[in-house]
């Protein structure tokens, strides 16, 4: 099936099998491997992207369902060689270790602040419930998101 999806500001026309998950379209058809896959139950959130500005797990929808939408992946966040403030906040607060959950975590965190620009620590923790990290114990992830909220 033909799909037309704007990805990181660029319109992409592709022919995909109907059963293709959006995450596989992003990784395999477009070669954007920054979006990771960490589970098979939509539990881990490593594949979180923005679909029309909203954070979604890209393993939960089919590529054909995204026809006509606009996506942002982790590769589309930095502008002119400058990282997004959320990326900078993660770096400055050691919010990542192995980095595998990080792209999804960053996308989810940006989505969280969009809905709630000045969250409390508890709100950040609740807001990131769908994204798992095995390295950081979340401490510095929460700190990063709070720092990004303060920096806005």
């Amino acid at each position, binding site marked *: 099936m033909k799909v037309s999806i704007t990805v990181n500001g660029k319109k992409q026309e592709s022919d995909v099998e109907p059963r293709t998950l959006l995450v596989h379209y992003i990784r395999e058809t477009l070669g954007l491997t920054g979006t990771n896959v960490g589970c*098979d*139950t939509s539990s881990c959130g490593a594949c979180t992207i923005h679909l029309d500005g909203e954070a979604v797990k890209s393993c939960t929808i089919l590529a054909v369902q995204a026809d006509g939408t606009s996506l942002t992946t982790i590769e589309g966040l*930095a502008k002119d060689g400058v990282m997004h403030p959320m*990326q900078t906040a993660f770096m400055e607060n050691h919010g990542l270790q*192995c980095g595998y959950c*990080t792209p999804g975590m960053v996308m989810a965190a940006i989505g969280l602040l969009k809905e709630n620009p000045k969250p409390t620590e508890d709100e950040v*923790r609740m807001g990131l*419930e769908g994204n798992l990290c095995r390295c950081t*114990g979340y401490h510095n992830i929460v700190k990063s998101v709070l720092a990004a909220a303060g920096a806005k």
Partner: protein
Amino acid sequence: MTITENKPTSVIGTRLLRREDPPLLTGEAKFTNDLNIPGALHLSVLRSPYAHAKIKSIDVSAALKIAGVIAIYTGKDLQSSWASPMPCAWPVTADMKNPAHYPLAIDKVNYVGDGVAAILATNEVASRDALDAIDVQYEPLKAVVDLEDSLSDKNVIHTELGTNKSYTWPLLVEETPGCVEEAFKKAKYKVKERYVQQRLIPMAMEPRAIVAVPQPFGGDITLYSSTQIPHILKVMTALTLGIPEQQVRVVAPSVGGGFGSKLDVYAEELLCMALSRKHNAPVRWVEERSENTQATIQGRGQIQHVELAADENGKITAVRVRIVGDMGAYLQLVTPGVPLLGAFLYAGVYDIPKAYDFECTSVFTNLTPTDAYRGAGRPEATYAIEMAMEALARAMKIDSFELRKRNYIKKEQFPYVAFSGLTYDSGDHLLAAEKAAKMTDLAGVRAQQKKQNVPGATKLLGLGMSSYFEMCGLAPSRVLASLNYSAGGWEAATVRVLPTNKVQVITGTSPHGQGHETSWAMIAAEKLGVAPEDVDVLHSDTAISALGLDTYGSRSLPVGGVAIALACDKVIEKAKTIAAHQLECATEDLQFANGTFSVKGSPDRALPLAAIAFGAFTAHNLPEGCEPNLEAQVSYDPPNFSWPFGTHMCVVEVDTETGAVEILKYIAVDDCGNQINPLIVEGQVHGGVVQGIAQALFEEAVYDEDGNLKSSNLAEYLVPAACDVPSITTGHTITPSPTNQLGVKGIGEAGTIGAAPTVISAIIDALSGLGVTTMAMPASPQTVWKTIQAATSGGKK
């Protein structure tokens, strides 16, 4: 203790941001499954749905008809592909039983997930579709799931061995024969406890992924794998496949966490390599999460019987421990050694006489093999001694902190030769514990507890603690030899100053989240007097870093980092001879500071390292016999383990009506000696603590009586999310290690070691007024509620 001979800059000890981060934050970093290898065939592995069964027949004819499927192999088909069975590098006793273990099962499957057939297809979808089309007839056998059932040998798994027992490993240390028994007879107080270390799934966020790329006309083969151990893997795959070692190159690209689960030689690595050579094409495999929970090693899995004898003051007079270890179906790389890593730590941080009787018996079960998982043996040991100390304090009706104070090895006793003969290089347990108590506001919490924990209250406050030693920094090679480990414990480093005064550090460590590139650059920058950004750190590719023993056991800094410092020293020594030659003075007359050699007393007669590096490159004016270039290589074998220690405390509130446990405060005071980068140290502690909390409250690999894993994905296996865990307050004391020039100790596993007993002792403390004295892990709301019910109904169910 000085950090370095010369103190040119102060890079060490600063919170330098990680250079690893930008590629990881922007999606640029390449994990193994991100590698684009044209023409790669896709491997899928058909896995046994039975824990224990004979394979009657395998019919692949229908699967072979699926478009894209190239070939399908069974265990029998590949029998001649292996020069030897899969390796176990730790035959802990001479008579250890080790069943032959091949990448695919041959006549019989021994756990759910055991490989049965390998499918090669031109694409992933076809290879997975073929899984459903293979018809395997099994004859199910009785599964052995329970450790005590396994010990009985009622059903023997590996019939050729005649028993389910793999080995018994004793460690009996007695001042005089029979003194342990005597101590127990004489003891004023005795406790006898039984603890279960549930099986855990390491669950690194990146599932395993592999690509083997052969070079059909040269015979070389490159293995890309999400591994912690590229160097060990190179040797082991060469031996297992019968390939000359020099033809094997192993690369670990970005690796998404390991926690021990990627410290192994796996069936899929061997299958990818063997099949890529058979088909003269690259072969790739990527693990699904529900496959990961069965086909990647699990951790823990022990039943512990612990006894303490104490005199009238609570001073411990003897320790007796009996362990049953769950090996799973086969022995993986270091499976049998895991209980041994804890064997020396069942006296914890306490000063005990030579009256120690430890014995571990390890058995096979029809479950996924176990192996090293963060802490490997040491969290188990620390849990047992710390919970037993809590039990002893209850028996004596004294505060457990007070009991610990009476038993801590005192600061002035270090270096302390323990009952076992091991030397604990440094420590100050009381200082760390008192700091933790202060940060926790111990007195305030106790006062609040009195107010809150009144009869009828449903929200009860509890305070828990544990003090630990982490025996890490694996390890002095001679000690490993005495434990029958097949390899050494050294680490290699090369330091090279390039003509333009930029520095290359090549390390044998293999990071997967620990930030070695940043920390190792800091060490070299400090030593050589250059900026950290001028230091490049190369690793995790055996073609670049030829020598190394990789990353596990909190060894990377105390062994690998120290090797880098030593290589820098060698570089400075060589540079000094060149400087002396060019400045026309004796080497003894020179001093090195801020990246410059100068003649003592005449600072104007000086040469910067930059000039020497360029001079060493042109080789126009070198002293007689001096080789060109500024480079040094070191293989460093540490003289001792590293002994980080600390005390953790936490405050919990337990809801007696729901069984829910909330951690209100978690304090971790850790001492890892000098810190290279405190930012990274804290990160390691945070993550470690949460993995320990996860064992205490959430996680368990749950099996049914037939050996089926009931928690086989991330929807069922409860890895905590951000909202499930508290923020962690870290503190530290600094007791530099006297055994290495950096004064450093490991920190990767400390958090995990300290956390589980801290949380469980807090829950028991909260419920002590209700008569609760034990708490199984994970202390889920259901478990807590049931334990309360059992205690309050007088022990009746």
